[in-house]
């Protein structure tokens, strides 16, 4: 898995850089700089979250994760995933290693899909900010509809994966 990722992303990157270089050298350099800067900005929150997951996983035994988020957790697992996903404010970016870790420890795809989708689309913590932009009615309607969508996505993912 790890090295096939390196191969695929490396190949894509190599081709993109080559194509970009043949089209415009200055733009390519600018793009590389931008990418590097974005990587540097995400690096320390990323490392922090990896450290946090490493520690938390040490304290939470696998059977516990399987029990609450695994194949037999049913609506209970969905509920936990939707609740945690809706209130937490981890950028989508950084939540993927957590999702991958949960899968490895025995959580189901359906539960992980609900967790990821609510995390991305529903924001209870950011609701006050959202209300300022869109007004109360629209903000609450958007979050409710997205929560429903997340559960539909979870059910379908569990069925298809």
């Amino acid at each position, binding site marked *: 898995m790890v090295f096939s990722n390196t191969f695929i992303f490396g190949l894509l990157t190599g081709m993109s850089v080559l194509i970009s270089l043949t089209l415009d050298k200055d733009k390519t350099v*600018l793009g590389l700089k*931008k990418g590097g*800067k*974005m990587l540097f900005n995400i690096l320390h929150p990323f*490392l922090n979250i990896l450290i946090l997951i490493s520690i938390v996983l040490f304290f939470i035994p696998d059977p516990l994760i399987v029990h609450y988020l695994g194949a037999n957790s049913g609506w209970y697992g969905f509920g936990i995933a939707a609740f945690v996903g809706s209130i937490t404010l981890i950028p989508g970016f950084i939540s*993927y290693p957590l999702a991958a870790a949960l899968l490895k420890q025995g959580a189901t795809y359906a539960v992980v899909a609900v967790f990821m*989708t609510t995390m991305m689309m529903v924001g209870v913590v950011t609701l006050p*900010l959202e209300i300022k932009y869109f007004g109360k009615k629209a903000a609450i309607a958007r979050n409710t509809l997205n929560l429903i969508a997340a559960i539909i996505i979870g059910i379908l993912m569990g069925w298809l994966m």
Partner: protein
Amino acid sequence: MKKHLKNYMWVILFVLFSVGSYLIGFKPGLVIYSNFNEFFIEMISFIPFLFIIIGLFDVWVPKEMLEKHVGRESGVKGIFLVILLAMLQAGPLYGAFPVAYVLFKKGASVRNIFIYLGAFSSMKLPMLGIEIGYLGIKFTILRTLISLPLFICIGFIMEKIVGSDFKVEEVKA
């Protein structure tokens, strides 16, 4: 320099903790380190490549041009463009609210604004790249294909719910 030091405080503490655990043979510390090591290798194996691609995308794709064509009469083409625009962004959802304001100012329909938010939250290209790396291509494609019709529906429903008196306020940070 001081700022960097502060940013990396946890990383530095963790390195010290790991080295310490190794020296005195502290078992839990070693297990935690081996967890971390596995995650770190997974991350470093593709994330840097991804950011090179994101950087190149950023300089080559003219986002401003797309923003102009998502107005009230834009129909299917507008939906398509607004999704494309969202896919080229990066960052957390609250970063999309100011863009929603810009779209509103430029005359985007209620429907397209909420389709934009949906696509922004779940179809950003940088994020899809990370998703493929961590959860696999099958998961990513299926989730995207299921999400897409759902948030287009949400766009239509939102238009019905909030109607014509909807407006996006500018919020100053």
